[in-house]
């Protein structure tokens, strides 16, 4: 009889099975085998079997490795040390088979042969190696050109959507921008020295395919400042093909800034009132195209719920041109980090600090003018501060 009856159940069914994958790795690696066994135990016990914490790493870096020790090392000795390497993915998760095979080789040599492609932050997660294998694994990764990503109180591995690589909505060059800032801030990525983690995510347009707004301290979203480009012939074509332009497009436009002339089969957009929500472009990508004056909206402060409740990033720069060498962005980023670094308490994310000290202090510190685009609504409470210098 199988030793892992519960996990075996999870090999059934149409969706590809992680258990099958673990078993494949287990054929070659004891650690993968013990991982299965320990997981089966967790399924029996209904609790995890990892100890608290773990600080391990490679030379010269303060992050990039997550330490993990089994709390049943006697029973599952091959996972008594089972650390994870976070490896910085290439922009947009593009790979050649060549480079991927090299990666597999390194991991087959040093680790469990198990990975997450990818982690929720975007890294390649190399799952499980003993302490002694960490430095050698890193050295071999370096050899094939893969560096570590972030962990701890550093800049976390930034990520971006496919953007200009394969998307007609990309208002900014997400791939290049990501690569550029990743290279520029290698020190911030590898040597934790902030109050807490700092995440950057870059989406080419308001569709936000990389979930920057809810999931990053600093979210960069492409946008445009002029008019949506309308190809009326293509509009007519959609109509001819039977699309319900009034019902599916115009009626769902949140600003009601579109008019469709069903007789003439033309679409008119009052671009001044358009908020660039993408809905119409999403539905009619052949007929509608993003504007020509492109750039990014910068939002900050997004994060998960702990400690004060989840936050979404919020607008601090409605529009910024984003062209190499991205100086304007970098200057802003550094001002933001400086202020946070100077004022943040231990484990206080940027958004929490802004809430604690107030947007006005933040804006002042990073030299930004208050603008109505920064808010959904003005304050409803009368508790606002005056610069006593101004009150004379």
């Amino acid at each position, binding site marked *: 009889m199988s030793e892992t009856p519960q996990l075996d159940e999870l090999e059934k069914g149409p969706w590809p099975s992680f258990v099958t994958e673990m078993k494949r790795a287990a054929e070659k690696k004891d650690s993968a085998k013990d991982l299965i066994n320990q997981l089966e135990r967790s399924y029996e016990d209904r609790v995890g079997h990892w100890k608290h914490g773990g600080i*391990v790493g490679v030379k010269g870096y303060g992050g990039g490795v997550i330490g993990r020790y089994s709390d049943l090392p006697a029973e599952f000795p091959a996972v008594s040390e089972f650390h994870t390497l976070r490896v910085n993915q290439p922009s947009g998760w593009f790979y050649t088979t060549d480079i991927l095979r090299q990666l597999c080789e390194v991991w087959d040599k040093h680790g469990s042969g198990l990975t997450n492609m990818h982690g929720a932050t975007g890294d390649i997660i190399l799952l499980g190696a003993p302490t002694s294998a960490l430095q050698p694994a890193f050295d071999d990764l370096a050899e094939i050109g893969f560096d570590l990503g972030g962990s701890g109180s550093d800049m976390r591995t930034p990520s971006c959507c496919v953007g200009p690589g394969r998307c007609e909505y990309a208002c900014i060059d997400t791939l290049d921008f990501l690569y550029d800032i990743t290279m520029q801030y290698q020190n911030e990525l590898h040597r934790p020295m902030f109050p807490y983690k700092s995440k950057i995510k870059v989406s080419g347009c308001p569709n936000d395919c990389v979930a920057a707004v809810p999931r990053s301290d600093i979210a960069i979203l492409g946008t445009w400042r002029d008019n949506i480009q309308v190809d009326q012939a293509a509009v007519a074509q959609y109509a001819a093909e039977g699309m319900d332009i009034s019902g599916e497009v115009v009626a769902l436009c949140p600003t009601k800034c579109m008019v469709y002339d069903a007789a003439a089969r033309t679409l008119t957009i009052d671009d001044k009132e358009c908020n660039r929500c993408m809905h119409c472009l999403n539905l009619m990508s052949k007929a509608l195209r993003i504007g020509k004056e492109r750039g990014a909206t910068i939002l900050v402060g997004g994060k998960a719920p702990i400690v004060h409740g989840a936050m979404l990033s919020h607008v601090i720069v409605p529009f910024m041109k984003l062209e190499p060498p991205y100086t304007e962005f970098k200057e802003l980023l550094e001002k933001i980090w400086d202020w946070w670094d100077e004022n943040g308490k231990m484990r206080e994310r940027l958004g929490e600090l802004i809430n604690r000290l107030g947007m006005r202090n933040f804006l002042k510190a990073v030299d930004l003018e208050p603008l109505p685009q920064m808010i959904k609504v003005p304050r409803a409470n009368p508790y606002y501060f005056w610069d006593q210098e101004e009150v004379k």
Partner: protein
Amino acid sequence: MPVMDVLGSAISVDEDGFLEDPDVWSEALAEAIAKMEDVDVLTEDHWKVVNYLRDYYKQFGIAPMIRKLCKDTGFQLKTIYELFPSGPAKGACKIAGLPKPTGCV
């Protein structure tokens, strides 16, 4: 529980090599731990960091944030990594006999 063999006596440490009992810390022990963290000799600069960490911990019950460590010791982060290749948390704090940091250095 893993043990570390220092100057002939067995000292309990956790898997990461942090002391199980902070009270057993001594300068000699620090020297011994240092070797395992790729620090051959604890120079004056090393001691400056180690002592700062110990003092800070004694006073506040926590390890300082890195920025504070740099500011207060006058060392740049780069220098800290030169002194302690495995970094301030895994390297310096361990040598200083602090509890394993969770949030900070």
